[in-house]
């Protein structure tokens, strides 16, 4: 019969295509770039990729269930705004207060220093997770379709973000910004480990972008175990045949809530990084919308089907990479900036249409209906 390897290759065909496509494109990019294959370019690329990659991973989970999360961009933005208050890192701490309906309510002081930063990050991630949990609760207990439930919760999150930052502002601890938006060597020297980054065995790793390491870490520590868990498999089962999943005794409701909560956590990761990268909090509604729509595109390009049941977050990461590489190309090949959106649009349209060409080979028309 078939060998294990051929089976695995065939099943992961979409992902492999995305990986190959990206690799070729990225290689070309470095070849054409005047400063190609340098640490500086890698760092810049990694920083531009991270947030969208996180949001795309967040989008992947509801899509695997056959649904959609229109609030990922808004949730990311909300956490971004929270981070601009909580990650200030000032030495004496940052006083927090709410101004609501003319009342000034003092909330205490956010501690400064490294422990304060850690606390701030944890709180921000918790907020993201809570947002995801709320999405899950509305979908499961409210019995509202995900697309419309998240449309509504997205409005709520963007509202909260606007409340936090009606104007862009805030501040992020400079060390934090430096450590996370550069290479591992800078990270080590800021955090004072590995001889401040000078240890000889560390040398080959010193140039690796921190954002890239973070991305790989989150993918390995969060996504891979989730996929191998019962909850993760239940998500795939729901996307493939929800009725059968229920009949087989799978905890469908619980898995849905876990799925959205995980999405919230990942969106929160993206929001924290964006705040750190831009060193401010910005409740930018069009940007939130763009992130949401781009996350959908990344998910599709990465090989996950909008109908659910197949694909994965690793694919979505590569989908993000491919999307970003396209904009990198514009810089390198000096495409007129006015033409860039057009190229982006046409490439996106072509990419998603190609995947559907498989449908043209269908010989029994009944099979093309869901």
């Amino acid at each position, binding site marked *: 019969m*078939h060998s294990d390897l051929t*089976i695995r290759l065939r099943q992961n065909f979409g992902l492999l295509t995305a990986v190959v496509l990206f690799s070729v494109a990225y290689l070309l990019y470095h070849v054409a770039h005047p400063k190609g294959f340098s640490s500086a370019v890698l760092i810049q690329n990694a920083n531009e990729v991270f947030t969208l990659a996180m949001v795309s991973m967040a989008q992947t989970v509801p899509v695997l269930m056959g649904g959609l999360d229109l609030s990922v961009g808004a949730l990311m933005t909300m956490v971004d705004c929270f981070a601009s208050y909580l990650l200030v890192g000032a030495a004496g701490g940052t006083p927090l207060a709410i101004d609501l309906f003319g009342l000034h309510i003092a909330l205490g002081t956010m501690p400064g220093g490294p422990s304060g930063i850690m606390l701030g990050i944890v709180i921000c991630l918790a907020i993201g997770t809570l947002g995801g949990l709320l999405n899950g609760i509305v979908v499961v207990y409210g019995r509202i379709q995900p697309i419309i439930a998240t449309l509504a919760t997205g409005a709520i999150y963007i509202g909260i973000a606007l409340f936090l930052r009606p104007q862009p502002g805030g501040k992020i601890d400079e060390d934090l910004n430096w450590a996370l938006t550069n290479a591992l060597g800078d990270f080590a020297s800021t955090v004072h480990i590995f001889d401040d980054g000078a240890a000889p065995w560390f040398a080959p790793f010193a140039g690796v972008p921190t954002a890239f390491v973070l991305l790989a870490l989150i993918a390995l520590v969060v996504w891979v175990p989730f996929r191998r*868990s019962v909850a993760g*498999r239940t998500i795939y089962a729901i*996307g493939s045949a929800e009725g059968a999943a229920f*009949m087989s*005794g799978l905890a469908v409701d619980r898995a849905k809530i876990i799925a959205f909560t995980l999405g919230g956590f990942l969106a929160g990761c993206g929001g924290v990084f964006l705040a750190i990268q831009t060193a401010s909090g910005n409740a930018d509604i069009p940007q939130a919308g763009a992130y949401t729509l781009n996350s959908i595109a990344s998910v599709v390009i990465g090989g996950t089907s909008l109908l659910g049941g197949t694909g994965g977050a690793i694919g979505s990461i590569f989908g993000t990479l491919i999307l970003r590489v396209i904009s990198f190309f514009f810089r390198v090949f000096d495409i007129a900036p006015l033409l860039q959106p057009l190229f982006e649009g046409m490439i996106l349209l072509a990419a998603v249409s190609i995947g559907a060409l498989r449908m043209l080979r269908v*010989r*029994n028309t009944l099979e093309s209906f869901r």
Partner: protein
Amino acid sequence: MPGATEGEFLALSGISKRYGGVRALENVDFACGRGLIHAVLGENGAGKSTLIKVVAGVVPPDSGVIKLEGVAQRFSSPAAATAAGVVCVFQELSLIPDLSVADNISLSAPPKRFGLIDARAQRRRAEELLAEVGCEDVNPLLRVHDLPLSRRQMVEIAKAIGRRPKLLILDEATSALTSVDVEKVYALLARLKAANVAILYISHRMHEVEALADRASVFRNGRHIETFDKGARTTAEIVQLMIGRDISTQYPSKPERPRPAAALRTENLCWENRLQSISLDVGAGEIVGLGGLDGQGQKMLLLALFGVLRGVTGTTTVNGRAVRLASPRQAKSRDISVALIPEDRKTEGLMLPMSITDNLAIASLGNLLSGPFVDQGKERRAVDAGIARLSIRVGNKTDAVSTLSGGNQQKVVIAKWLMTQPRIILLNDPTRGIDVGTKQELYRLMRELADQGAAILFYSTDYDELIGCCDRVAIMYDGRIVRELAGVDLNETNIIASSLNIETASQAVTSPSGTAHA
């Protein structure tokens, strides 16, 4: 034995269940014991499926008690029933198509390591269970949707025995299996019986029941009629119990007529590798049957004749004119006038949430217009005529069609097509899951339509129906027509033999090619 509930593994007493106004189960007392294969017989609508659903925890009974080994049980879900040792293999598969065989077999309680699913242990478990059902050749990594239907059913069975059931329920589990796999299941059931597992077995295949069952229970109209041991009743008696009336009046008589000219003819019809060189003709006024085992291409042939398949080669002529059927819309058009009653009424024949009127009118709206708008008067008259013609029991025409019973739903599908006044009617197993009364009405209707000049091609999985209704039957095997039976040759022996592609003595003159002979 009937009604005895003491000391049995499973004992039901006083079980009743209603769905709206329909009494699915009425005060049922039933028992089955360990180490026995217990068949449950009855026409559709008799309550077999509901009985199974109640025992397997899918639906709760309205009243009555379920006892397992003397202890009363209340199953809140299928998972609860499985935990108590009751495992059911349903007709509609409970497998997840996009997951692997190994994942499916250990779907709800997989082996774990460090809190995560242990893929290697899971695979080993799958290999063991697949070997137990005799399917070692299935690679556990394959996704379920890549497997043919018969293999999927075997995976479903492997999954069920993996739960180590004390009571195994098989609901039409062999209907999708190839003959080779059926033998494996029989062997498995024998092993389970020896291991003291109680087995409940629902099947419509009488020869299977005769071969396997130690005991049988007959249900009719939601009531438990009788339970008897193997050999205590003849087939005729059993059928009598099932339908409650004499079987000889079931089929309308066939007129003696010379074979008419072909209204629909195919020559060397081929499609992918599923249809090979089909040459067939159906004349106006004839009912031609399609027979053979499941999955030999019968459904594909009907779809091809309705324009659903692409890449069909060969010639098709309708009333002498060659046509290239490209879509159902074209097949339905006035000069071709073909209708297809599809296989699954719930997903292919009806829009369940829409009203009865909308479902009836959908195929003939083009005839019900005045100007660009739908003429509501014309529509009402046509719908009323359709309902009357098929005697469809309807409460309110604006109700959703999902509120009708299975038999009435099927009538809606047929009435919908009769409203287009078709000259050629294709029927894909129309009586599957229909109660006896409606079946008889359908047989009469088919003969009536034929007498009025329609050409009818009728696929059925029921030999009796083929013999009783059809003027000629073409048996398909592996995408070809291997034999055509008519007159005295049209009997069960020949049908079965041809279905299995075995030559019988009376077949000595038939050539083994795909062409049909009179």
